[in-house]
């Protein structure tokens, strides 16, 4: 793998221009200016918003500030999803910058996980990596790693160090050539149309007959509505990292290159608006050539 290092870099350095506005019900001493940040798609909201908190601290009393949380158009944003997933899922058709509302009161306990410190994010991140490796390698790779190796993955993400992260992460992306891929592909399919937050099942990169599974074959099994029937108009967009990969893209390749640092391939299904997506955001990825 990793012949496509440019793709890994593009994924890692994806950014979303964001405008943070203080919720108008917060008690302030004077008017709060909005705060602008370029958010890394692969990171977590609570990991990169210390500056946002500091900014609003200037106009608020400490005692009026409880745990900070974020909302977009009435939806509390789950910090434990990667930022890019939150944007694709809730705001992919919005104009930029993405406008997020910041709250310091009325934490929605039922909907959001608490995030009192970065160690909570680290635990969540490592738990995702472990789960992904349970699917990919029966946990063998992650269990063979030392504590400092785990730390290296986390520090790489926390400090936005691509090389540091990938020096270790590539071990998690290896597989025996003869098997043609991981045991199972760690993926999650998100949509906002039902209460169930995501779909996650067992799915292999190669069919029992030896055919390469593609993004299309995954969707066909997990979320058939996302694939338009012939002649039918497309109702949904299938978005990963802000782009719509071709449905013919091999799943194993997507898993290796378009997974988030937590090692899961996060796929968002969003209702399509009337206008077609601009061609510039449709990248072309390798497609399956006929099976050897």
């Amino acid at each position, binding site marked *: 793998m990793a012949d496509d290092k440019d793709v890994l870099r593009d994924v890692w350095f994806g950014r979303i221009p964001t405008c943070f506005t203080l919720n108008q019900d917060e008690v302030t001493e004077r008017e709060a200016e909005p705060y602008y940040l370029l958010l890394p798609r692969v990171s977590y909201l609570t990991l990169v918003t210390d500056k946002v908190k500091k900014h609003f601290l200037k106009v608020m009393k400490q005692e009026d500030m409880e745990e900070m949380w974020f909302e977009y158009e009435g939806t509390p944003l789950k910090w434990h999803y990667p930022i890019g997933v939150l944007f694709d899922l809730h705001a992919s058709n919005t104009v930029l910058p993405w406008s997020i509302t910041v709250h310091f009161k*009325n934490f929605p*306990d*039922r*909907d*959001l996980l*608490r995030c009192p410190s970065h*160690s*909570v994010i680290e*635990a969540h991140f490592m738990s995702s990596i472990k789960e992904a490796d349970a699917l990919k390698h029966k946990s063998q790779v992650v269990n063979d790693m030392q504590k400092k190796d785990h730390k290296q993955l986390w520090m790489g993400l926390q400090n936005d160090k691509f090389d540091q992260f990938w020096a270790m992460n590539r071990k998690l992306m290896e597989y025996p050539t003869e098997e043609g891929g991981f045991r199972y592909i760690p993926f999650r399919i998100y949509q906002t149309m039902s209460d169930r937050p995501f779909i*996650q099942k067992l799915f292999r990169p190669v069919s029992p007959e030896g055919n390469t599974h593609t993004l299309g074959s995954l969707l066909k099994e997990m979320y058939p509505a996302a694939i338009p029937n012939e002649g039918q108009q497309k109702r949904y967009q299938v978005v990963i990292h802000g782009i719509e990969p071709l449905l013919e893209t091999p799943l194993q390749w997507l898993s290796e290159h378009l997974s988030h640092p937590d090692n899961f391939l996060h796929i968002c299904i969003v209702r399509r608006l009337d206008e077609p997506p601009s061609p510039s955001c449709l990248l072309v990825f390798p497609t399956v050539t006929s099976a050897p």
Partner: protein
Amino acid sequence: MSSCVLDKETFRHCCQLLLQLSEQLGDCWCWVPVQDSQDGYLRKTALRLVTIDSRPFGDQAESSSELGPHNSCLSGPDVQQNDQDQSALIGSANGDIIRGDIEDQDNKDNRDGDDGEDRICRMCEGSSQVLQYEYHILFSCSYRAPVLYFRVCTLEGRSLSLEEVWGSIHPNFRLCLQTSPFTMVTQQEHPLLGQAFFMLHPCRTEDFMRPLLQAAQDQNRPVNYVLTWLSMVGPVVGLDVSLKYSTQF
């Protein structure tokens, strides 16, 4: 090897058996199906008398020996709580109490403007309180194992924080918590409901189930994976499984 992990069908089968026993024993497990899918989970609610120890990582681990055995949830449908379909288990006064000082939780828990509420919810020093536990058993396809999710709130409806949950864990299990709290109990999104729950981490489940299943296999003894597993992990968070599940049938 293959007998040490669980598949979805076996999980459902084990759950069905557990439900039958639960009904006969007057325990209150129920199956909650998830809309538009085959999936679902086992659910049970219980009331427990608990003292929250504010220093779960402190020096009180050694004091565990002074405590009586962890026991005595008075189970039974006769103790009903306001919600009709919810069962109630009340821990006896000497059952689940954990020694230790209680931190003033006030500053953390002042969530909204209703300060009157918050005063009442506040953990006061030296006292224990009745908490409402909601337990869910789900199947994890990644770990091919059952996973215990739960949430806890006061009778006034205030959710407990992770620290408070850590503080409520029985001293017998504290040692593990002290060394690596985050690998044991963390807050996680409920994968079927999308809500915030606490979770007992499943990544070691296969390891501790293997010898048990192996032994059962060697002795040609049938074993209900979910029940056996639950009897091991449940007590960590106050969910005791009656011996009758194994002895009466």
